[in-house]
């Protein structure tokens, strides 16, 4: 277990260091998030109160912005065949997956924070009272999203269709995350208490556990030639 944690931390640190240098994923993800918010602000019927649909808008933006950055996660490893180099080291396949997952999760959480701030600015959403609940729900949603996203970005990177394939395969599998995440977010944004979304939180946590455990286990078969 200590080896697993150490190896995962090494991979996550390496990915985040590379992102810190290149800022490729963060810049594209955050730009996309702001643009989607702008599009929504123009497209939305002025008679509709934004807060009534804010949960859906936030989650659609997080999903598509996250998808945009995910593709880069494993193309990074394809340059100079670095993934082959990694697989030749004594690193466990599960630890390799988990490290990539942690780095992807960290980047998505940053993007999600920015998404909330942008929507608060554009649609005058009040986040203050529900901040803790929103943080918890969003974090759990991001965990599930990145658990599957990391696995399928590895699959997509090894196929010719690559980035085209990723959303087609991934989005249907994310429906449970969207249903429970957007539902809870919506309720919290309209001022309902955290206790009212307890069921959603438990379901998100359950899906997270299943997704993370399953993907950590099967990742080895995905990346082995």
């Amino acid at each position: 277990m200590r080896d697993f944690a150490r190896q995962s931390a090494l991979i996550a640190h390496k990915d985040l260091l590379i992102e810190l240098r290149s800022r490729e994923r963060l810049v594209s993800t955050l730009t996309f998030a702001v643009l989607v918010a702008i599009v929504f602000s123009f497209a939305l019927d002025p008679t509709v109160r934004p807060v009534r649909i804010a949960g859906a808008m936030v989650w659609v933006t997080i999903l598509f912005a996250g998808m945009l950055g995910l593709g880069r996660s494993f193309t990074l490893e394809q340059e100079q065949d670095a993934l082959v180099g990694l697989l030749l080291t004594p690193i466990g396949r599960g630890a390799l997956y988990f490290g990539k997952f942690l780095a992807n999760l960290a980047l998505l959480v940053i993007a999600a924070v920015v998404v909330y701030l942008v929507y608060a600015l554009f649609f005058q959403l009040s986040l203050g009272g529900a901040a803790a609940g929103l943080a918890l729900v969003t974090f759990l949603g991001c965990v599930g999203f990145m658990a599957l996203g990391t696995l399928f970005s590895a699959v997509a990177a090894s196929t010719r269709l690559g980035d085209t394939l990723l959303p087609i395969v991934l989005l249907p599998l994310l429906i449970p995350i969207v249903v429970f995440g957007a539902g809870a977010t919506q309720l919290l944004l309209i001022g309902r208490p955290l206790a009212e979304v307890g069921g959603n939180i438990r379901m998100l946590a359950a899906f997270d556990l299943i997704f993370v455990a399953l993907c950590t286990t099967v990742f080895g078969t995905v990346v082995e030639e």
Partner: protein
Amino acid sequence: MSGGDPLAQSSSSEALIQARGLEKWYGHHPAVRGVDFDLGSGEFLTLFGPNGAGKTTLLKLLAGSLRPTRGEIRFARGDADDEHARRRRIGVLSHQTFLYGQLTADENLRFYGRLYELGDLDDRIDRMLSQVGLTRRRRDLVRTYSRGMQQRLALARTLLHDPEMVLLDEPYTGLDPHAAAMLRAVLEQLRDGHRTVVLVTHNLSQGLELADRVVVQVAGRWVSDEPRAQLDASTFEALYTERVGGTV
């Protein structure tokens, strides 16, 4: 030559690897067929062959990054059945460097060194960078390196964990004469009698320089397996042309 006596080839040294009935198929296409050999500890084997002969596939099988369709590769000594332990015993240098362009040379080696859980990592990194002549550029991002410098750093990465067996896949590709000479000097040092080396190349003169044993692979089969001492360059060139031309 798969039908020859492989043990005879490595009689002077203990066999580190035994490959028996090795085959790798991609769908209906055989990349490696019926290859049997023993590879002695400390032996330097050069594998020649035309494009598509399956040389890189054989190297991947030896590295453990591919599983054979049939047959087996057995490692002698140590934790031969422990895949993680086996990976510690092997170093692979390909024409792809396995390096990250957005990291410095130092960071790349430190990252790989930690994956191998190496002790005295600072000393090892200093030594390897000095050996490949990159000490002064160690803090520069690898993407700013020339092709030759990247390949030298890849060599440092390959040898950082002091592997018992080194697999080299076309390591001279894209190198200028200076970089090729430096690579050759490092490879020369690998001939220490303990480290087993397998070099895959198209280049006859570079491949023959350091080899103890010379193999020609065509269409997945070993069609020639000779001790280097019994060959001079012109004889081998004629033999290679005959074997490759006659089989393809």
